[in-house]
């Protein structure tokens, strides 16, 4: 009887636990705390945090339990991540939720979305400098786009072994927008610049909103065909929303479909952070470079806003450059709040959303371009 009891005990997680798994469980709890108590991107951090807990429960390897074991349930769910299916589905829902009217009303704000992508290319150089392989460097660089699904999509294609750390880094920095972005915005702008008011955008007709996804998908995907899985789905979702004749499909895409994909994406990415696979010096390097990428992206957006002001008659608020990263709607909200701190009657949210949505398009194009470099 004692032998049986000992055998049972030796199969339990308490017996098999490794210090790396305990560390990761602690990280998972922090994610859950940030998501629930602080409400930092709860839709992402809660499934990821819980996934980290589940992925780091110690178990006997070889029984088809873990996410990296080919015949396990978690492995089948993870298939959607490694093939890039979940990110594409998330983009479909994102498109169905996005209102591009503020962008169409002021197309010049799209340039800020382009400028914020410079963080990606600076980080590409940085990652190569620190000795990462080119495919790994490209996957790390895309963290600068601040777009979780895009980062996962590109990493799945170029460096699948880094999906865990890159996804966690991307989502962590998206959740930490309120901590990372405001100091950079304040550092790079004067009070006078932060006080600049944006003129209200013109009224955008329904026809324009319908034409935009068609023009967008054609122009962007002809330029970077490898961005098709992301941009094709993004603009399809948006067209479903704007055409007005398939409301049922649009409603499903922006609710049930994106929610389902987000749950499985977040959960399986969390599960993929098994302590023994995740806690490596490379992961630490990815986290550091991710922070650099995100900060440079924010800074380049703001600086480009200031450069644009040198040439524009009607000045734009350079804070909007920070919303050029594609963390929707976190960075637009942060720009809005920073503007409100200086002038409680200066509302920048809609303008920020314009930059945000162009950032989504920009980072997907960047992912396509980076992928095409290695085809």
């Amino acid at each position, binding site marked *: 009887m004692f032998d049986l009891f000992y055998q049972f005990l030796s199969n339990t997680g308490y017996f098999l636990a490794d210090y790396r798994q305990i560390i990761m469980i602690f990280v998972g709890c922090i994610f859950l705390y940030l998501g629930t108590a602080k409400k930092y991107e709860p839709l992402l951090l809660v499934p990821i945090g819980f996934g980290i807990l589940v992925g780091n429960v110690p178990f006997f390897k070889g029984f088809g339990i873990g996410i990296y074991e080919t015949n396990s349930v978690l492995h089948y769910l993870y298939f959607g991540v490694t093939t890039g299916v979940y990110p594409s589905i998330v983009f479909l829902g994102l498109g169905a939720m996005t209102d591009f009217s503020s962008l169409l009303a002021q197309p010049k704000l799209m340039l800020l979305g382009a400028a914020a992508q410079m963080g990606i290319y600076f980080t590409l*150089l940085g990652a190569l400098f620190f*000795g990462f392989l080119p495919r790994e460097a490209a996957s790390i660089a895309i963290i600068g786009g601040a777009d979780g699904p895009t980062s996962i999509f590109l990493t799945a294609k170029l460096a699948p072994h880094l999906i865990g750390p890159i996804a966690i880094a991307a989502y962590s920095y998206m959740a930490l927008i309120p901590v990372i972005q405001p100091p950079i915005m304040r550092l790079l702008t004067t009070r006078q610049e932060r006080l600049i008011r944006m003129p209200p955008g013109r009224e955008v007709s329904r026809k324009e909103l319908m034409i935009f996804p068609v023009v967008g998908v054609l122009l962007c995907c002809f330029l970077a065909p490898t961005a098709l899985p992301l941009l094709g789905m993004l603009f399809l979702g948006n067209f479903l929303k704007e055409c007005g004749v398939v409301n049922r499909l649009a409603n499903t895409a922006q609710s049930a479909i994106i929610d389902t994909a987000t749950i499985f994406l977040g959960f399986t990415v969390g599960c993929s952070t098994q302590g023994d696979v995740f806690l490596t010096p490379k992961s630490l390097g990815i986290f550091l470079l991710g922070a650099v990428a995100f900060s440079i992206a924010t800074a380049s957006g703001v600086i480009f806003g200031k450069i644009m002001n040198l040439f524009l008659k009607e000045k734009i608020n350079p804070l909007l450059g920070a919303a050029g990263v594609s963390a929707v709607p976190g960075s637009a909200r942060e720009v809005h709040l920073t503007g409100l701190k200086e002038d409680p009657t200066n509302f920048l949210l809609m303008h920020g959303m314009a930059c945000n949505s162009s950032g989504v398009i920009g980072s997907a194009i960047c992912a396509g371009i980076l992928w095409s470099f290695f085809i």
Partner: protein
Amino acid sequence: MFGFENITANNGWAMAVVGASTVFLGLVILSFVISQVHKILKLWEERDEFLNRHKKQAQIEEPKKIKASVPIQRHLPTVTDLTSIYRPLVEQLKQPFDLLQLFEISNKMDLPHPHLSIKYLQQAGVLVPQGDGTFTWDNQKAN
């Protein structure tokens, strides 16, 4: 391999420059195109007016054609008369309305030249396009 040597060996500089300029170029083109879409749409929606203006210019150049167009106009009431005829019809419709609805009602009432009359009201600014294919009745212009 580390440092600048690794960047150069893996074509990093070229990738960064080409990548950054491509994404910039793509978004610049897209922003330019979408900034022109509303202008093209406006031109398309006002194509009748544009064509009429063009025809009128041609008519000035060819006096015979002016003579030919006069009798058609002579049969039509003035804009003031038209507004008094069409106001009760428009009041039956919910604003904004489709021109097709107004046309159907005027047909039912057996009004003469409903197409031309509606066109004149539109040209006089009494029927105001909303940009989505519907129209509203401008009371100020109608008075």
